[in-house]
């Protein structure tokens, strides 16, 4: 891992070859990346060319209030794939979960990488940053906020990996006891890419890195700072169960006929319509499946506040609060207020009747 010097000499293709990936396999990866990022197919050779020449960039990985699920997702080891080789190719100079060094040694590695690659290195962050009390989360006695600000100062770009780093995620969920915030709420003067998801799709990370290596820039982003190529369309739009939604065919329980027939999971709480991610096309576990295909609705984990967006098994259209109980209280108040309004009206009516002066034929005219 943290072996800077020597690794920097090797190109990506070289290290891929050493790991037994053929040129054909590599080109296949480039084509897949191009298509995944919605680039024209003729961009694949350009990607290949750029990657062949690319030098290992230095990456500093900061983990704050997180569960390590993102790291798990990104580093899960199946038989070697181009994706995880890309990870091997980058110079991951600091990652306190993965690196061997600990304590001051580890921090020294981070500082060294920052100094050596001033203005060049990429900072990857997973986890949210607590603003409530710096003591909630520290590394080597340094608060998350301080470490982030320090590390980002000399970075080329920041990639917020996972929903916690991108939007505050689970720690930010109500009542947000630590005052957790996302990376982009702190980093205002550097480009920040949000790769949301709980966890995010590994391909998306490699896609973003490949883009950076190929073009030296960050990909086009959506309004929430996420790469358009992956987050530009909703789960719902890409879902193979979508035709059932349009026809009004829904599973109503997880074991009914509709569920067995693979009908739409909207009524079972699927948040696909409001979730933007590439799960339906990229899939998980080496393209094996994804949540909706496995029979469970989308949780909308790539969206801000997904933890607070109502029960996972409540349809998207259902409000969050306990409306039935609220309706009962409110109806009680309504009856009480209505009775008051009614009483006011009745007394007005009664007063008018009391004040009635009989109309006689002598007062049919106005005299003025």
């Amino acid at each position, binding site marked *: 891992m943290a072996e800077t010097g020597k690794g920097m000499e090797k190109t990506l293709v070289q290290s891929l070859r050493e790991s037994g990936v053929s040129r054909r396999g590599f080109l296949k990866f480039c084509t897949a990346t191009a298509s995944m990022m919605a680039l024209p197919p003729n961009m694949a050779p350009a990607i290949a060319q750029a990657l062949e020449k690319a030098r290992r960039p230095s990456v500093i990985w900061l983990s704050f209030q997180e569960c390590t699920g993102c790291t798990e997702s990104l580093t899960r080891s199946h038989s070697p794939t181009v994706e995880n080789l890309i990870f091997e190719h980058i110079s991951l100079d600091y990652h306190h979960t993965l690196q061997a060094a600990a304590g001051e040694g580890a921090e020294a590695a981070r500082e060294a990488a920052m100094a050596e690659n001033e203005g060049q290195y990429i900072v990857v962050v997973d986890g949210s940053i607590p603003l409530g009390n710096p003591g909630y989360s520290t590394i080597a006695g340094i608060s998350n906020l301080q470490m982030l600000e320090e590390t980002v100062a000399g970075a080329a770009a920041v990639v917020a990996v996972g929903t916690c780093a991108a939007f505050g995620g689970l720690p930010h969920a109500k009542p947000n006891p630590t005052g957790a915030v996302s990376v982009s709420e702190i980093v205002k003067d550097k480009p920040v890419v949000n790769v949301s998801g709980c966890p995010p799709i590994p391909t998306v990370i490699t896609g973003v890195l490949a883009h950076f290596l190929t073009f030296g820039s960050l990909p086009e982003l959506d309004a929430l700072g996420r790469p358009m190529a992956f987050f530009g369309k*909703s789960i719902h739009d890409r879902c193979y169960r979508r035709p059932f939604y349009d026809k009004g065919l829904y599973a109503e329980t997880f074991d009914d006929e509709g569920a067995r027939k693979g009908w739409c999971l909207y009524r079972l709480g699927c948040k696909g319509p409001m979730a933007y991610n590439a799960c339906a096309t990229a899939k998980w576990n080496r393209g094996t499946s994804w949540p909706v295909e496995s029979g469970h609705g989308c949780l909308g984990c790539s969206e801000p506040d997904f933890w607070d967006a*109502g029960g996972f098994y409540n349809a998207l259209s259902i409000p969050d609060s306990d409306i039935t109980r609220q309706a009962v209280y409110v109806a009680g108040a309504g009856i009480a207020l209505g009775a008051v309004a009614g009483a006011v009206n009745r007394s007005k009516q009664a007063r008018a009747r009391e004040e009635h002066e009989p109309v006689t034929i002598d007062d049919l005219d106005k005299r003025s």
Partner: protein
Amino acid sequence: MSTPVDFLLWVRGPGFDIALAVFIIGILIRLLEMLMLGRKPDYAEPRGAELGAGLRTLLTRTLPEQGTFKRSPFTVVGGYIWHIGFFISLLFFVPHIELIDAVIGLSWPGIAGNLIDAVAAVTLVTLIAMLFSRLTHPVKRLLSGPEDYLSWLVTFLPILTGYLAYHRMIEPYPLVLGLHILSVEILMVVFPFTKLMHAFTFIMARWYNGAMAGRRGVQS
């Protein structure tokens, strides 16, 4: 952080709570301030019973009187189309059924989204035509004031935003879904204070009309 999702969560959370409270309290105030005014006893010997005649009128007024239909077919047919379209969209779109189920625990089969979509499109067009008629027909123009146009708008917007949301015409989706829910909340808040109340009070009005006529032996 203010994102479309925050907006959606607000309209689905506090926004909905506020709207529901105003809606329910407003309606109950309106109904009670009306009902508690009461009626004076009628000492005239009745020729017929009030109850049956009142209930019959409650139903029969759903169909137009023939001559009136011939004289104002547009108002009658347009009125039918958009009311029926509105209620089909409201009551048979599955996401709406889920909401109703969550609030009152009643549920029924829905209709396919693409059918609802067609119904909503017809409803939108009809409502626009109704507005045009209101602006041009001398009687309707004379009768109409700001309240009538406000009522039209708050009825129109939920269908429009619902249509936009179904077709995901505004991105991201949480924004357009939020706008749809917000438009419904505006409808709920405006409802008790405008002629939209007729959705409840027509029952009383028709019953009183039928009962008062039925007492005299006439089916009104």
